[in-house]
Structure formats: structure tokens, C-alpha cells
């Protein structure tokens, strides 16, 4: 342990200064090594491979060669921009719904749950004990055409409203945009709640008292104190929700119809069915670039440096 901490200046050890400093200098790199190797093998290499695939041409029969065919990108974008828009729209809606549902929940856990806090937190994570696919399939049963949910919403004429908004069609929910957005919201909700909870939990409750002492109404306290302090949680929560949601294809596949296909579905079908690897790779890169751009812009605008 002592070799790692800063040596006290009053007691220099003249015999072994050089190797020790050397070792101390190298320690961070040794600690980084597993992570860097992991990144190299499972992120950097696949990225290079994918980048290469996206500029290749050929066929499975004849093999693929790098021909720097950048038109693939343009063609992919021209052909599949509607699915890109759909992805961004659905992921955006799911993120907003997650925030609207997740913020009060995280607030409750952080400030009001008392001794139930751990239990509620476990309940938030509990769905993760089953597989993603099973959870999504469960929604097919919940939203089934003849099921109670659709029946109740129908008799309350809620579906007329959503239908007018273009989110549902006729008297069903499955195979409509609403079903896909619901599935996304449900599946990614914990990713929103947990960062929100961490940053809310850190807020000193005495700040609320202080705000009260200064004659701030509860709403003002929330607007001027709590919410700004929870911004890091909001930013990281929205990112953790939006990024995976925009690349998701399971929800659109199982809960959507043909016109709800997201860009993930296109990549999957190009890669597995059509066997057009360059287009699939180019689409992945375009998605990545689009997300990177949006995220950068968002972080700049949100004005927060810390992400938790």
C-alpha cells in the first residue's frame, strides 16, 4: 500500500528512489491495461472491421474487396431515411415518457420512501432478472386485441384520441406505433430511474429546508433547487435511454407492424436476410454518427459536465 501512496517529503529514502518512482509512474497504466485490452478487442477491432466492410463491394459468391465505395453510405441513407426518422422519433418519445414516469419515481425513492427505499429500488431492477425478449413478449399478451387493456381503453375512447394522433389504428394497440413506444419505455425505464435516483439521493435535504426558510414555495424549491441539482442524473438518464432505444429492433419486430420498422430492423435484415454486408455496416455507422452528433449537441446545450 505504502508504495502507492504519496511518500512524505520529510522522510526521503535515498537508496531506491528511481525504480520506485518508475513503478509509481507505470501503475496507472497497468491498472488501465485490462480495460484498454477489452476496448481494443471488443470495440476498436470490430469498428475497424466494420468500417472496412462498409466500403467494400462484392458478393458472398465472389468475396468482398475494399473498393472505397463510399456511395454505399449515400444509397443507404437515401433508401432508409424513413426508418432513421422512425427510430429517432420512437426513441425520443420513449425517452420523454421514461423521464415523465421515472422522475417522480426516483424522487419518491430518494426523499419519501424511508425504510422502503431498498425494496422499491429492487422492484425497479426486478424485471431485469428475466430476459429482454420475455419481457417484450409479455407486452404482446398485455396489449392483445381481445385483452382487458384494449377493452378498457376502447370503452373510455382513449384509443380514438391516440388514433387521431396517429399512434394507434382502429381499436387495437398491438402492431401500432404506440405499442412500440410502450415497449421501449418499459424496457428502458430502469436506465432512467437509477441515474436519476443517484443524483437526487445526493441532494442534501437541508437545502430544501433552507429554501423553505427563504420563503420558496415547494414548486419554486423544486424548480430552483432540486431540478438543477439533479441535472446530471437527467442528462445521463436520457442518454442511457435514448441511445440503446434508437438502436433497438426487438420491440419494433415483436410489437410493431411493417410501417413501424426502425433502423435496427433494417440492419438486421440487410445483414442476415439480404446478405448485403456493406449496406448493413454503413447503416450502423450512420446511426452511430447521428447519435454521436445529437448527444454532443445535447450535452453542450444541457450545460452540465458531470454525468452522474
Amino acid at each position, binding site marked *: 500500500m505504502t508504495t502507492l501512496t504519496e511518500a512524505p517529503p520529510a522522510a526521503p529514502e535515498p537508496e531506491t528512489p528511481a525504480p520506485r518512482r518508475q513503478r509509481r509512474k507505470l501503475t496507472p497504466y497497468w491498472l488501465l491495461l485490462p480495460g484498454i485490452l477489452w476496448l481494443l478487442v471488443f470495440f*476498436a477491432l470490430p469498428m475497424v472491421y466494420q468500417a472496412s466492410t462498409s*466500403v467494400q463491394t462484392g458478393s*458472398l*459468391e465472389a468475396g468482398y474487396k*475494399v473498393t472505397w465505395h463510399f456511395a454505399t453510405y449515400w444509397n443507404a441513407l437515401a433508401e432508409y431515411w424513413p426508418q432513421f426518422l422512425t427510430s429517432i422519433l420512437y426513441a425520443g418519445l420513449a425517452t420523454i415518457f421514461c423521464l415523465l414516469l421515472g422522475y417522480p419515481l426516483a424522487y419518491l425513492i430518494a426523499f419519501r420512501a424511508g425504510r422502503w427505499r431498498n425494496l422499491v429500488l429492487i422492484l425497479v431492477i426486478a424485471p431485469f432478472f428475466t430476459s429482454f425478449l420475455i419481457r417484450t413478449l409479455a407486452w404482446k399478451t398485455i396489449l392483445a386485441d381481445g385483452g382487458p387493456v384494449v377493452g378498457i381503453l376502447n370503452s373510455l375512447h382513449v384509443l380514438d384520441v391516440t388514433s387521431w394522433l396517429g399512434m394507434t389504428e382502429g381499436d387495437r394497440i398491438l402492431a401500432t406505433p404506440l405499442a412500440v413506444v410502450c415497449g421501449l419505455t418499459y424496457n428502458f425505464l430502469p436506465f432512467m430511474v437509477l441515474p436519476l435516483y443517484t443524483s437526487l439521493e445526493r441532494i442534501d435535504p437541508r437545502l430544501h429546508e433552507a429554501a423553505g426558510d427563504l420563503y420558496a414555495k415547494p414548486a419554486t424549491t423544486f424548480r430552483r433547487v432540486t431540478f438543477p441539482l439533479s441535472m446530471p442524473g437527467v442528462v445521463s438518464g436520457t442518454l442511457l435511454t435514448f441511445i440503446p432505444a434508437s438502436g433497438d429492433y426487438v420491440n419494433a419486430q*415483436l410489437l410493431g407492424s*411493417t410501417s*413501424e420498422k426502425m433502423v435496427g430492423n433494417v440492419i438486421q435484415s440487410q*445483414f442476415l436476410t439480404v446478405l448485403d454486408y456493406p449496406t448493413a455496416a454503413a447503416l450502423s455507422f450512420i446511426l452511430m454518427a447521428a447519435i454521436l452528433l445529437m448527444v454532443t449537441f445535447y450535452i453542450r446545450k444541457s450545460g452540465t459536465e458531470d454525468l452522474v
Partner: protein
Amino acid sequence: MEQYEPDSLSKAQLAAMRRSMRNGRSALTRRGLLRAGGGGALTLGGLGALSGCGIPPAAQSQGGASAEDFSDKEKRVNFSNWTEYMDVAEDDKNRRPTLEAFTKRTGIKVEYAEDVNDNNEFFGKIKPQLAAGQDTGRDLICVTDWLAARLVRFGWAQKLDVANLPHAYANLAPQFRDVEWDPGRAYTYPWAGIAVVVAYNTKATGGREVTSVSQLLDDPKLKGKVGILSEMRDTMGMTMLDMGKDPEKFTTDDFDAAAARLQKAVDKRQIRRFTGNDYTSDLTKGDLAACLAWAGDVVQLQADNPDVKFHIPDSGYITGTDVLLVPNKARHKENAERLIDHYYQPEIAAELAAWINYVCPVAGVKEELAKISEEAANDPLIVPDKEMSEKSNNFRALTPKEETAYEAKFAKLTGA
């Protein structure tokens, strides 16, 4: 190197700044590291690596097709099959009587995996090893004919040794004997024939019968409750038959006309989903009122839900075949061949067919089936009668170019 030094800073501050840029630990900032690492690697190494990679032609398998056969030393065979494609004992779902009979007779243990869910997905799974000339870890796989044709074309399947297949050679039913892509069945043997039919749930249709593809695509009563198969050949073949085209010798124009017809149904939201095997749960629940379906599935569904009915369209139906083949570099080729042969003994074939309800490719199975169940023996879906055989159609073999083009057009239909 010129350095940016703001005038507003004091001498000491400037010195500190310069020192910090040269000195020890702080000289290596995170940003600097990223810039050096990212920029350098991407521009120099990246470009080299990018043009260095490439995917070799599929058909060149390295180092020959066969590996050393360990069949004698290792009494094992690894068999990959589709789900619900093997008989199970009534009292214990983990016991598979026909496989157990094989082990008992030969002493060869079967590692049975139900890991084929979708042809395209499975191809994606085994492609990397096969392309690199490596063992896939599987000795026997069951895939649909068009994928088998592709594997044979690439030289990724091993030629079977007839000496190990006496029953199979003798008992293969005549209508399965010759296929364009595998003359004389040198590489593959059929596991089961699959008929594509129109299925419907009378509860969801309100008692209506659904009898044709036209009705699926046009009947306003079915709007938003129609399922279509995501297998391109099955769906396109059925649509072409409905339009009076012959799926055994259609042209690209015929294909496009059929695609346009389906597109119209997609656009007016008649079609709810393109499904794989998952239509079964939707159909029983009634979320799908009617759909294209695989006959054997429907027979199995009917046992649980009498509302599910099916109809063979008057225009005919498409038959696909799931076949068994030994992929390159399999370690236990001979054991695999003996397993294929096992299923060509009529009594074993009958036991299997009575359970899976698909067309049995073994001649002489009818008599054996009758011993198990008279009903199964007379079921035209298992042992096709004359009328059934006449309505059966194959989807013609596609050239690689056609395959890519048609799959792309079909993918557009499904929205992706």
C-alpha cells in the same frame, strides 16, 4: 513549435503553463492521449487495416471439405435441429424415443440441440466457421432446401457415403429423389416436407372461412389481422400461385407483380405482420385472424385449440423440404450418416411423422403409421394422397444474383 500564449497571463502563469505542458505526468493529458491515440491509429493504422481486410469468396473453402473422422473413437454425434421437430415421450419431455432407439442400437450418443430458429439467422451463425474452413461443432444440421442448396453451392457440405446409408438409399420416396441443386441426393437427405397453407381462427374471423391468398390480401373483414410468412419463397410462391403463375418457372416480372400485389396489401394496412414461427401464438390468441402457415404446426395447434382451421387453396400450395446435411470439417461424419439412415427405417420414420405431423419422405411409411394411428396414416398432410400431390408446387432454384435481388425486394415489403 509555436505555442498559444495569451497576453493576459503573468510571467509566472505562463511559465507554469509551459512547464505543465512539458513536465512529467501532466504532459500526458487525457485529451492529448485521445488525440494521439485516436487520430494516429485511425489515419495511419486504420487506413492500412481497412484496405487490408476483405471477405474472401465463399466458395473457396480452405484445406478441403472433410476433416479426420473421429467417428470410431468418439461415439458421439452433434445434431442441430429446429424446435418441435423431434418426437418426445409423453410422460417425460426430455426423452426422445427415436433418438434413444438410435443410441441403444449403435452405442452412439446424440447431442441434440434445438438451435435452428430461422434459416437466415442460422446461416449467420455457422457462416464464419465454414468460410474459414473450421469445424462448426455440428455433425448434422437440418435446414430448409434453399439454404442447403446455398451450402452445397459454396462447397460447405460434405458428400455423403452411400455405404452408410442403405435404408435411406432404398426408402427415399420418389418425389423427393431428384432435385436440381443436389442430383441423386449426394449431399442431403430430406427430414420432412412442409406444406404452406392458409390458416385461420374462426373465433377471430367471426365464423368466416378463409380459403385463398386473395382473401387474405383483400377481405376487408380481415383488415389488420392478417399474417404473412417472412420466408420469402413461401410467401411469394403462394402469392404467385394465387395469381395463376407457376412458381417452378416464373420470371422476374412475375415476381415483381406478386411483390406489387403484396405491397398494396401492406400499404392499406391489411397485413399486420410478417412472421416466422411466432404466428402460432398470435393465431391461437386471435391477434391474427388468418395467416399463411406451415401445415404441421397447424395440426399441432388444432390439438389445443379447435377454433384454428386451415385450408389448402385451390390454386395449390408451396412445398418446401427441410433436409439433413453434414457441414464441412465435422468430426463425426460417419456417425451422422448412420443417424440419417436410422430415420429412414419405416417404423422409426412413422414414429417421428406421427408426432411432428409433416410430410414424411420415407416410402412405405403408411403401413407403419397405420400401426400407430389409422388417422395419421390417412392424413394427406403426412402421407400425401394423389389430390394433395397434384396441388404441390416447388419454388424454383434461384441463381445467387436473383436470390440477393429478390430477398432485397422482399425485405422492402416487410418494411426493413
